């Protein structure tokens, strides 16, 4: 059996509906109308120990709902879930010792007290021994460069600093699984790279299984190759990121810088996007012609100085994918 196994998971929400205006406000006092929303609709997947999995989908797709069920916060309506041998909701108190959680939009640190006091408190909560605590803390502080932040109250940290502290806090008790719900939301480029580097490092060093949601596809691309895509509560895709790229982007963009070209060759399956001083940019439809044959056609007629293959932006691919599934 897999480390994390989810089978036919369902979750519905009842959302109160009310028309606008005073009249409807009074009406809803007496009788409320509800709309049933299927937040998670028959989702199944397996994740092995030590994997990093990107869990992606547009806003309101049911990502966070799934994560919350995996964390034991929400009770599923039906379906089976086993994580590291536990039923997350039923065995919540025992189970949560094995997981670390970062919700990018919320804070788990205590607002009014210095970071180090939050850590000490977590140490008591998770009953971590002094020796283990000191070891893990020193390691995390070094990795995340927290030395100078430890005695600062959380409310005075910048978002990037806070996020680093949040991640450290979620790892103090050496969890086997780490749930990251939009860990880079609102971070600047440098902090983002830092956070990514760190997640990779932790995954490699400690074999922590990481489940990550993010709207930033570069996050996903940098961290993992396995993605699960969901939309309207349904699982749409489970496989490699390369697979998505292949499926939804048939084009490659090629930039060729050359010398001594007399006649521009006409190649079927390509489209010239830009032509300039000893330089041409073309879109290549790789279903019709391979990149190497395009390059060969050019080498036949001129000297090539440089070739760049530009992959389609992952964000565009995801937009195509969402459109493809009518999201």
């Amino acid at each position, binding site marked *: 059996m897999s480390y994390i196994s989810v089978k036919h998971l369902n979750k519905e929400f009842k959302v109160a509906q009310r028309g606008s205006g005073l009249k409807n406000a009074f009406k809803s006092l007496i009788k409320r109308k509800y709309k049933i929303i299927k937040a998670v609709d028959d989702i199944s997947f397996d994740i092995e120990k030590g994997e990093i999995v990107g869990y992606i989908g547009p806003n309101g797709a049911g990502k*966070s709902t799934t994560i919350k069920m995996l*964390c034991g916060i929400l009770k599923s309506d039906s379906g089976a879930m086993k994580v590291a041998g536990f039923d997350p909701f039923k065995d919540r108190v025992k189970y949560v010792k094995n997981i670390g959680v970062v919700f*990018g939009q*919320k804070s*788990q640190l205590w607002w009014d*007290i210095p970071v180090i006091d939050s850590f000490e*408190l977590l140490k008591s*909560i998770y009953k971590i021994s002094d020796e283990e605590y000191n070891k893990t803390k020193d390691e995390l502080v070094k990795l995340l460069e927290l030395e100078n932040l430890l005695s600062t109250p959380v409310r005075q940290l910048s978002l990037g600093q806070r996020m680093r502290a949040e991640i450290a806090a979620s790892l103090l008790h050496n969890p086997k699984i780490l749930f990251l719900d939009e860990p880079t939301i609102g971070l600047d480029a440098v902090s983002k790279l830092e956070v990514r580097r760190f997640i990779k490092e932790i995954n490699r060093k400690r074999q922590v299984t990481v489940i990550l949601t993010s709207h930033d596809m570069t996050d996903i691309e940098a961290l993992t190759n396995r993605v699960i895509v969901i939309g309207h509560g349904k699982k749409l895709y489970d496989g490699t990121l390369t697979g998505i790229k292949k499926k939804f982007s048939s084009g490659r963009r090629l930039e060729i810088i050359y010398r001594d070209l007399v006649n521009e060759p006409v190649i079927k399956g390509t489209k010239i996007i830009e032509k300039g001083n000893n330089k041409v940019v073309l879109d290549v439809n790789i279903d019709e012609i391979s990149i190497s044959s395009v390059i060969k056609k050019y080498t036949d007629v001129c000297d090539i100085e440089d070739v760049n293959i530009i992959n389609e932006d992952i964000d565009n691919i995801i937009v195509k994918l969402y459109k493809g599934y009518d999201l």
Partner: protein
Amino acid sequence: MRGYLKYFKTELMVGLQYKAAAIAGICTQLFWGFLFCLLYEAFYSYANVDAITYREVITYVWLMQAFFSLIYIKIEDAEIIGKIKSGTVAYELCRPYNIYFWWFVRLLSRKYAHTLLKSFPVFVFAFMLPSAYRLSFPISFEALILFIITIILGSFIVVGISMLIHIISFFTLESKGIASIIASIGGVLSGMAVPVPLLPLVLINITKYLPFRLIGDTSFRIYSGNIGIIEAKQTIILQLIWVVILIGFGLLLLNKALKKVCLQGG
């Protein structure tokens, strides 16, 4: 257990930071204390009351002012309500502790922090007043010990009630209404308006079946000797029963709330 204790200490330290609020609180408490003293002085010079003597009432007034933060029922912690509203409660659920007792400890530590800040200056002031308005010493050493035990158990009862108010916001997302209803009823029945023995007979009878009078009223009267040692000991048993009932009910309600909890966004 160690976690809860550590949390109590941490929260206590956080609570003790709010010095300006404490100074404002002390002034309010002294003002009301003095006002009540004058009021009862006038009252007792015209009325004959057997249930509680003037001296006992004055002691009652000052003890209530000193322990006001401990016994007053209100929304203690906007942060818990905020957590429920914003969904940050999700984090709390990812921790290996019982969320009920965790919040219980939090509310309790808040109450103790406020009380620690305020009670000492009020005591000093009340002991130095002219004899007519002065706070008396406890009637006996045994009464003092019983007073301390009952005031602590009383604080558990307040927090038990307060927890119910907080948990209700899982269902309604807004518990100010319920809180103010409970606070005003509870206030009257726990002797915050006038000591329970001075209430109309009907209300006195009602208080017997409710936990409110066990919060401050009985403790203050044990201190002054208005309630004897034997009855004081019975009070402790009664308090323990109410603590168990309130915590049990709170746990039940919170479990029910968590089953239907729905956390959105993020």
